[in-house]
């Protein structure tokens, strides 16, 4: 590999795809095909309706055999869509799959120049010429197989992450489930009921939490964050930060020689703790101590010390006693390393800070609350024991306004442009709950459109209508408070009646938009996953690969990929777990062989490339009395940063080698119809 490559006489086959009318609608296929025949090295140029179909692929394989082709060019869609397809067809014909090059004449041509057929055809000819130039210089490459670590990691232990971890572990894969909070359960554990079945959220979630905790294939790491990630599919090396919890689990206690010790979850410590803080699980509507659990059903049932609040008085240590000795107020964060083959990200969501929509007065008026606060107030295990009250005076509200699309579908620049997808349905559920719980109460639902898209959702919508909820189609312009009664005046336009409304209500519930959770940005960067403009993690393909990412071996589950309700989250989690288990069960993965290769006769051993490599894949070695660069293939990811800077041109980037790229540049600018 070290010397300059030698090529046999290239024999190239060009295949132009119509893609129905997607390409043929604006590009003259015959003209491109005839033009391709005039290009150097081109032996055969053909066309077909759908090159990606079986007959289309067969054309490629047959042409390779009949014409003894050495390179294939398909002018069709994006290589990001069908490069693997045509590589397989090339392989089918008996040629090395890397002797294939694609000319993108759909996404970057026919679709973006729909009304300029002449220019589009000329651009397609150029694209074919550029691709033929590269195909003439392509070489055989062998993908490298690497073994896959037989373990997986799931980041985030909401309902999606728990499901993914359960599936992976049940498939026989040891799974690390990492959760930044002290307990698993996520947002779903804060909900009261779930739509449209009205199942109690806790009743269906807590058994799952217990399953996760007890599953021998799952190593549960709560109060832990991802600190650093190295490696690639099959061999991720993840550094985790176990935040100082201040309380030992029974296992940890045993490891320290305190036999029979550790936290039993009795709560003696929290009874004596003198520090009172708002409980974030109850959204600040209930207190917790500096040593706390979020709620009685937490899993694992281990207390946690909030070291930001703790005054280290030691009362809890005393209460815990000498036998259990579970509390260690000098605990420090610990770092741990785990090696995993694949990763599922289930990072969840946060509620959009709806106070930014100041016209609705959240945080300014006592009786304007968010839907999640409503969930806690209506929940039997919530701070009011399930009695919905007005925060201003503790009275039971009778007239309750629900404001939908609060911050969603908002193009003012303050809110979010997207639909948060589950607010319509939970607001319908809320309406049902108050009709059921408060005699004479009337819910008023201010909506733009009711999106009841799922199975039995539309039926649920009709049911709530029949139960007496009032629906007013119109976006709420503003909300004003009566300073004496603390009642609220909701001003909106009823767009069905075409008249303005000023409605006095006792309580307003804002169905606030959702946004990516606070840690999403940091975590996605650690794993090299892209995000959309709104910050949601980007799937590899919106339709054909909704669980995968562009980083091989990293998969997505749940709302972190985009707003979705519980059934969709669980379904995607199962999909992600299945996808993540495939490389592990196969035992090895093939890496694209785009490695750097040192052409040792040209290498001067200057070492500039060694510092440029972000993966420490390059080093200098002594060989035959000279210093030359050496590539560790397992570490090289093929970015080509070294090859872009080598002063001597001594680095051969496989599949993107300098002669190949220069040939493309020359073919465009010097070849063709000048």
């Amino acid at each position: 590999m070290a010397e300059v490559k030698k090529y046999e006489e290239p024999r190239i086959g060009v295949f132009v795809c119509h893609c129905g009318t997607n390409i043929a609608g604006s590009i003259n296929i015959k003209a491109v095909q005839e033009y391709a025949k005039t290009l150097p090295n081109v032996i055969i140029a053909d066309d077909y309706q759908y090159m990606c179909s079986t007959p289309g692929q067969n054309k490629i394989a047959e042409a390779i055999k009949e014409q003894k082709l050495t390179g294939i060019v398909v002018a069709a869609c994006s290589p990001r869509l069908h490069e693997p397809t045509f590589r397989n067809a090339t392989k089918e014909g008996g040629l090395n799959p890397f002797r294939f090059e694609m000319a993108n004449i759909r996404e970057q041509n026919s679709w973006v120049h729909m009304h300029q057929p002449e220019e589009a055809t000329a651009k397609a000819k150029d694209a074919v010429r550029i691709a033929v130039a590269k195909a003439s210089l392509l070489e055989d490459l062998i993908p490298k197989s690497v073994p896959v670590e037989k373990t997986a990691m799931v980041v985030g232990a909401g309902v999606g992450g728990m499901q993914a971890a359960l599936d992976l572990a049940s498939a026989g894969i040891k799974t690390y489930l990492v959760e930044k909070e002290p307990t698993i359960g996520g947002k779903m554990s804060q909900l009261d009921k779930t739509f449209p079945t009205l199942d109690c959220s806790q009743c269906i979630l807590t058994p799952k939490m217990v399953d996760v905790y007890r599953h021998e294939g799952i190593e549960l790491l709560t109060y832990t964050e991802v600190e650093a990630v190295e490696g690639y599919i099959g061999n991720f090396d993840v550094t985790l930060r176990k935040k100082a919890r201040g309380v030992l689990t029974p296992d940890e206690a045993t490891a320290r020689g305190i036999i029979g010790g550790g936290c039993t979850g009795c709560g003696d410590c929290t009874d004596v703790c003198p520090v009172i803080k708002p409980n974030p699980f109850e959204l600040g509507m209930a207190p917790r101590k500096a040593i706390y659990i979020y709620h009685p059903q937490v899993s694992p049932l281990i207390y946690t010390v909030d070291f930001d609040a703790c005054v280290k008085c030691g009362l809890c240590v005393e209460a815990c006693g000498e036998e259990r000795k579970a509390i260690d107020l000098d605990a420090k964060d610990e770092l741990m390393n785990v090696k995993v083959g694949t990763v599922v990200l289930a990072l969840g969501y946060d509620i959009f800070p709806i106070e930014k929509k100041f016209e609705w007065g959240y945080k300014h008026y006592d009786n304007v609350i968010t839907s999640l606060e409503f969930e806690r107030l209506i929940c039997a295990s919530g701070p009011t024991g399930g009695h919905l009250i007005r925060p201003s005076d503790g009275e039971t509200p009778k007239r309750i306004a629900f404001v939908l699309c609060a911050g969603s579908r908002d193009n003012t620049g303050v809110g979010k442009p997207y639909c948060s997808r589950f607010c319509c349905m939970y607001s319908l559920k809320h309406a049902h709950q108050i009709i059921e719980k408060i005699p004479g109460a009337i819910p008023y639902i201010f909506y733009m459109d009711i999106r009841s898209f799922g199975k039995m959702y539309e039926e649920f919508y009709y049911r709530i209508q029949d139960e007496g909820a009032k629906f007013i189609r119109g976006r709420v312009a503003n909300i004003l408070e009566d300073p004496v009664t603390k009642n609220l005046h909701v001003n909106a336009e009823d767009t069905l009646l075409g008249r303005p409304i000023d409605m006095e209500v006792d309580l307003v519930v804002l169905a606030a938009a959702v946004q990516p959770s606070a840690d999403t940005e940091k975590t996605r960067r650690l794993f090299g996953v892209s995000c959309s403009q709104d910050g949601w993690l980007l799937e590899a393909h919106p339709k054909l690969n909704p669980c995968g990412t562009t980083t091989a071996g990293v998969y997505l589950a749940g709302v972190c990929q985009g707003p979705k309700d519980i059934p969709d989250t669980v379904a995607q989690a199962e999909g992600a777990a299945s996808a993540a288990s495939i490389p592990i069960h196969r035992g090895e993965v093939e890496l694209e062989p785009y490695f750097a290769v040192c052409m040792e006769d040209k290498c001067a051993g200057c070492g500039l490339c060694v510092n440029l490599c972000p993966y420490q894949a390059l080093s200098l070695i002594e060989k035959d009395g000279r210093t030359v660069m050496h590539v560790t293939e397992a570490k090289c990811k093929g970015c080509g940063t070294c090859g872009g800077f080598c002063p001597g041109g001594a680095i051969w980037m496989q599949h993107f080698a300098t002669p190949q790229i220069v040939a493309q540049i020359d073919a465009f600018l010097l070849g063709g119809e000048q």
Partner: protein
Amino acid sequence: MADENWKPKIIAIICNWCSYAGADLAGGARIQYPPDIRAVRVMCTGRVDPLFILKAFQDGADGVLVSGCHFGDCHYLEGNYKAAKRMFLLKSVLKNIGLDDKRLRMTFVSASEGAKWGHVMEDVVRTITELGPSPLKELAR
């Protein structure tokens, strides 16, 4: 001044993970833009050897666009930073040989920014059209 029918020849070297995906997304969304740019795909803008760009200008390119991921979003951690540094260097080289450095452009378009790709295409074509044919065109013949 160039004749009215003159169209610029512009080459875009774009990274597989962000800008190429963004350009594909523009296609999916049927965003229409001027058809004067031809793309060469590389895995990362870090791969872009300054010599590729000089070769393109030597061959008579009227403009060169290099487009990669946003800073901090590089699929290979930091290739786009290194590419950006090289572009600054190259711009001063271009000025020294008498080429307007606006003929070389680096942009950052993510995989979700189809609309932005359309804007970039329009803007690059407009800029290069205003500058007219490259004075190095004769050299290429």
